[in-house]
């Protein structure tokens, strides 16, 4: 049984699909990530380095010392899981907590973000964009500026290069983590092109990597 969509919505849909298909070429960090071949090695992190990471997390995430202590107690050492392409995953007792692309910011795994949703600022994609995000696409401006999307108000605008959580229209929990490519005010003004690069999302290979 097939419903026949009106021409208008068909055109909208096709146009959008094509746009996303182009974008699917540029996938997130953890699309086609194979632990058996892409993990180079695991090394314990020196305590001086751990202190540095801890203070970076405290200044770059919206988190207090007590909560960070809960996630990663001071007396416990994290393990640095070195991966291909200068990708680093940091794990505690084998559970990936956060990661860092080539000198980029420390980003929480989606599972950690689910437990502590306040550690990153949020943006919201509309329902139509969800399946594209889940296929690895970066997010375009219209998916965030449409009626189903959401961006922080002007007085809380985010600059380009900010780590954000992707909420999704009609959903309770975040669906992924990305880095803004434009400032949120710019997204509104320009309203085309890539707004937020997707880095990791529900169902990608980092999501699947529950134990290291």
């Amino acid at each position, binding site marked *: 049984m097939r419903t026949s969509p009106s021409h208008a*919505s068909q055109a909208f849909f096709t146009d959008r699909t094509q746009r996303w298909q182009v974008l699917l070429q540029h996938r997130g960090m953890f699309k086609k990530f194979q632990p058996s071949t892409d993990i180079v090695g695991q090394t314990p992190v020196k305590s001086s380095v751990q202190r540095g990471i801890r203070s970076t997390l405290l200044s770059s995430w919206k988190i207090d010392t007590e909560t960070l202590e809960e996630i990663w107690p001071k007396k416990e050492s994290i393990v640095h899981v070195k991966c291909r392409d200068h990708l680093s995953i940091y794990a505690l007792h084998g559970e990936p907590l956060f990661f860092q692309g080539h000198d980029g910011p420390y980003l929480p795994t989606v599972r950690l973000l689910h437990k*502590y949703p306040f550690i990153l600022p949020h943006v919201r994609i509309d329902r139509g964009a969800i399946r594209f995000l889940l296929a690895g696409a970066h997010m375009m401006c219209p998916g965030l500026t449409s009626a189903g999307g959401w961006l922080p108000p002007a007085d809380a605008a985010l600059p380009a290069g900010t780590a954000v959580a992707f909420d999704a229209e009609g959903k309770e929990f975040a669906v992924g983590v990305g880095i803004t490519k434009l400032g949120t005010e710019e997204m509104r003004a320009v309203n085309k092109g890539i707004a937020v690069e997707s880095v990791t999302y529900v169902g990608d290979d980092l999501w699947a990597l529950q134990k290291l």
Partner: protein
Amino acid sequence: MAATVDPTSTQLEKRATPPVQMFYCGVCTYPPEYCEFGNSLSKCKEWLQAQHPDLYEKYYSDVALKAKLGTISQEAQSRLEEETIKKEAKADAKADAARKKKLASQVIIKRIERNKRKFVTSIRGLEAFGVDLKKAAKLFAQRFATGGSVTKNAAGIDEIVVQGDVSQEIYDMIAEANEDGKGGKKGLDILKGVLIDNIELVEEKRKKDTEQ
């Protein structure tokens, strides 16, 4: 005097924010609200209805289904549902083909006589069941304190060769790894997935005339 709480100390003592208790789908691992974007929606729904009827109601009641449409058009939603059905059918067909292929695959454990009373054991066909040959060879070598390696046979197919006559022991290990309900003994999970009925034990004797 009974201990009283010092008001200043409770005010100063900051508390960690407790984590959100997450609940994930037992079929596709997504948060249940995202099952509709995976490729196993029917199975996810069945599972949720059986395990957590309250959550099933939350996500799949008529009211919930209407609410989640959000700003997406009815047409776009119908297309999404059609795609979900297609994705499921595709995933099912793929799983079915994989199952059939497994059923038709054989593992041959061969005892080969090299010299008088010198044996090696070759194991062929484990890869069809998703076993990592290198890891399995290492496991056998460790278990029997002997040499074990992956080599290409005359036909150019990778097989495991273990020094000594350990064919029965290897059969037992594979059987143990795949016993029902045991969920894989520690260390043996490398061998999981092999169909026991598809294992054949054979023997290769030295030809009399080449013997001296």
